[in-house]
């Protein structure tokens, strides 16, 4: 599903975020990407949806070489990924429902089917009753669940989350991780970046630890 092979990433100015990263994530796996702040977790995750391109090495996602992907093909890659961010990246001038509908607007689904899918995604994260609310009316944990609903509404085979629990209290963090675990149980591949060792211990999944620019398992 995901394969990194000798991947390095240097930013303009010479800052080296990743030196030599190699790992594979098979379909249906759930893995944590751990590491201290600044270890390169966010950079690694950004390479998967081609937000950043590798300076060297190969990143394969569903067999596609992301580094060689043309700009016009990137949106289609991203539609097959579910992305969840630490800061949720929600539209605060839209309702909860409209936020979840956003990724469906680009696709080929008709309005009725799209609405049905959006409500199903909201139901899965326990927010169907709040579909008319504005995201600002939601708690931090609910906002993160809304971000997850938006990420899964296109039924992606791969969910990637960058510090999704960083701003949440312990209970909300566990609740969010349980949602990821639930999606993983139905075959969705999940990669979650976190520095929360307690969560990693509690969920006891594969851990890819980033240190000194490389992966230690």
């Amino acid at each position, binding site marked *: 599903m995901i394969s990194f092979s000798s991947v390095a990433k240097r930013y303009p100015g010479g800052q080296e975020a990743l030196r030599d990263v190699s790992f594979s994530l098979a379909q249906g796996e759930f893995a944590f990407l751990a590491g201290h702040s600044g270890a390169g977790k966010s950079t690694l995750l950004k390479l998967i*949806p081609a*937000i950043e391109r590798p300076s060297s090495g190969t990143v394969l996602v569903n067999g596609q070489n992301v580094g060689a992907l043309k700009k*016009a093909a990137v*949106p*289609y890659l*991203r*539609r097959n990924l579910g*992305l969840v961010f630490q800061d949720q*990246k*929600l*539209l605060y001038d839209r309702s909860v429902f409209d936020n979840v509908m*956003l*990724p469906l*607007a*680009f*696709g*080929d689904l*008709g*309005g009725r089917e799209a609405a049905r899918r959006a409500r199903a995604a909201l139901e899965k994260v326990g927010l169907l009753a709040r579909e008319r609310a504005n995201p600002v009316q939601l708690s931090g944990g609910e906002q993160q669940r809304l971000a997850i609903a*938006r*990420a899964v509404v*296109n039924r992606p085979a791969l969910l990637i989350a960058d510090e999704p629990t960083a701003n949440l209290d312990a209970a909300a963090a566990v609740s969010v991780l349980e949602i990821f675990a639930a999606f993983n149980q139905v075959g969705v591949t999940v990669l979650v970046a976190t520095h929360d060792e307690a969560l990693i211990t509690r969920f006891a999944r594969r851990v890819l630890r980033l240190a000194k620019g490389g992966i230690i398992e």
Partner: protein
Amino acid sequence: MKSWLRHHRQALAAALGKVAAQKAAAALNALVIGIALSLPAGGYALLGSLRAATAGAPLEPQFSVFMRADAKRAEADALAARLKGDARLRGLRFVPREQALKELQASEGLAEVVAALGRNPLPDAFVLRPASGDPAALEALASDLRNLPGVAHVQADSAWARRLAALTGTARLAIALLAALLAFGLVAITFNTIRLQILTLRAEIEISKLIGATDAFIRRPFFYLGALQGLSGGLVALAILWGSLSALNVGVAELAASYGSGFRLAFLEPGDALAVVLFSAGLGWFGAYLSVSKYLLEIEPK
């Protein structure tokens, strides 16, 4: 195809939503564009009216040669024979004084004046069409005609029509230049409006790109917004033009009536009016295209 149409419908709805959300700003933009476009459109309408009013005027060089009032018909016949042999002329028409009087009587408002004269004051005349339009040749011909026996006066009839045609041509060029200049203005207004929209929606654009929106999908509502802005500006221009011509026609009708004419300033032909609106919408679309091409590419998720 179905989803393509749906995406366009969504984009149009999004653009209409943005207009509805900023009614005052949209109305002001339409007004500015409308005022700017009404100037060349108005000039074009005025030219159209003028063209219609002068449609029968001869534009080719033409001379009217008037005989002396006391000249006999035999002198006129002799002059006709002489003129027919002049290679510098490609046609002539004799207008006997009786026919000239009839034509004058037929002119609106002059019948009573002519009847009051008691006698025919008009001379026999010739209307001549020179073979060459060269100004020097025409001047020489006019000079020779003045010296012919029995000739009292030679008048270059087409001079005013040619001057009018030249003036109309210049006015048309001036209107075209004005239209081009104001078209740049319209594009600039739309460019800036869309730039502000893009900056306002920066977060939404970034998020949309992040979750799989193509550039085409993101660009589309802005194109529609630009076109809608141009379209509404075009409609405002037509409204301004219609209102202005209606107001002017009150005075024009009175003035024309005093000359016995029914002349009125005419509104644009339906085809021309449609062209103004479509041109305006097209320029709006183009302004949006330029703005989107410049600013949208700069927004990439980080």
